[in-house]
């Protein structure tokens, strides 16, 4: 924890991120290329789902990352409210749209997969609905953090929202187990069957790791941009002679 506190200083964080970002970006591109090749050409087609199983390589990691992203927002919110770390606010501002994008990718790929598999783009099943709610929570967070004239107020209001909204995460995680009886069992995602063959599981996990790299890369880059933006705004305010 001490190390994370060390990075809470924006200037120090910026030096750190500038050192890390080029290598991280290079690694992300390499891994994504390799994993996409694995997912689309090396991994076999499923005997039941056929070629559509390849959608899962993008769908499942996006779902994981969008949930992880919201947990990150809640953690950042807590550290902003408890320790008043200025960096936490900037990083939450940077991370929310990235997480929302992963949630959107998850919903879109899910419905594209659902069409051939379930025969419909959308069912009002517990997991789909709670994922949609997560997407709305992201949108609320983004809108709220940008709704104030003083950005600090928006940051703190959004932090409180993130802490309340995090209740949704266990609901998403366990919705499939809790609401089996209320919904037709066919709509439960097939991946929770214990037997995923290694030829599918290994590329899936690699894909998850490379998308995690992408997530971290985007969040660090956007945080750096937020720091620069906040600095420029402060400099502009001072130049105007700040009639305090």
């Amino acid at each position, binding site marked *: 924890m001490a190390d994370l506190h060390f990075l809470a200083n924006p200037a120090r964080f910026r030096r750190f991120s500038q050192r890390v970002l080029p290598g991280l970006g290079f690694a992300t591109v390499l891994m994504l290329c390799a994993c996409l090749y694995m997912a689309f050409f090396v991994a076999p087609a499923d005997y039941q789902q056929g070629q559509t199983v390849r959608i899962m390589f993008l769908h499942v990691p996006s779902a994981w990352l969008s949930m992880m992203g919201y947990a990150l927002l809640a953690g950042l919110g807590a550290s902003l409210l408890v320790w008043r770390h200025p960096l936490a606010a900037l990083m939450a501002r940077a991370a929310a749209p990235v997480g929302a994008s992963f949630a959107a990718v998850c919903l879109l790929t899910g419905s594209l997969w659902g069409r051939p598999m379930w025969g419909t783009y959308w069912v009002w099943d517990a997991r789909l609905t709670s994922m949609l709610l997560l997407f709305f929570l992201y949108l609320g967070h983004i809108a*709220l953090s940008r709704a104030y004239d003083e950005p600090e107020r928006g940051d703190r*209001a959004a932090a409180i929202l993130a802490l309340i909204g995090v209740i949704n995460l266990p*609901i998403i995680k366990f919705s499939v187990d809790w609401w089996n009886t209320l919904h037709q069992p066919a709509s439960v995602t097939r991946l929770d069957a214990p037997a995923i063959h290694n030829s599918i599981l290994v590329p899936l996990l690699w894909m998850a790791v490379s998308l995690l790299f992408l997530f971290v890369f985007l969040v660090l880059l956007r945080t750096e941009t937020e720091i620069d933006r906040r600095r420029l705004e402060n400099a502009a305010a001072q130049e105007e002679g700040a009639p305090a």
Partner: protein
Amino acid sequence: MMGGFTALLARDLRLVWRQPGDVGVVLAFYVVAVVLFPLGIGPETNVLQRIAAGVLWSAALFAALLSLERLFAADHEDGTLDLLLLAPWPLELAALAKCTSHWIVTGLPLSLLAPVLGVAFGLDGESLLALFATLLIGTPTLSLIGGLAAALTLGARKSGALLALLALPLCVPTLIFGAGAVETLAAGEGLATHLAILGALALVALGTTPWAIAAALRQAGE
């Protein structure tokens, strides 16, 4: 400590009592919004019976949102909020008092009104009672979550639309189990499970939102 709670609650109720039109507008909105559905969908009784609970519940949710924007805004503008922040009793209790008064003024009348409108949808007596019970247990949750959204958007640009964007997703579980209760009754199952879940949701909201509202109000007052 409870003295402050009751004093604030009594003050808010007195303010509403002197302006009863504000409550009337919310109830009128509820009636008009609900009436639109039979007009838009058509008068087939079996269709209306099927959608009644969902329509009455969703419309109650929208009606409860209507009056939320002013819940803290008036106090914020005239300085009452600053006094509440300085008051020697916890701000969490003040938040709870505001939400309680919101529930008495909107949630309670909506719960009473819904079964009356349910008759127009052809619901039987048992379903009407279920509708009343679920709304009575569910609407406090809406007031608490809505109070949080109102506190978070206090002083924001376009706070009305933002308030709905924040509150509605958080209210979905209450809506699902509230409207679902009437449906399970039609399927011949008991109400107890759904009422218990609604009660649990209300308790979770009661145990979390007052603190979150107080935190939001504190940073609005800074």
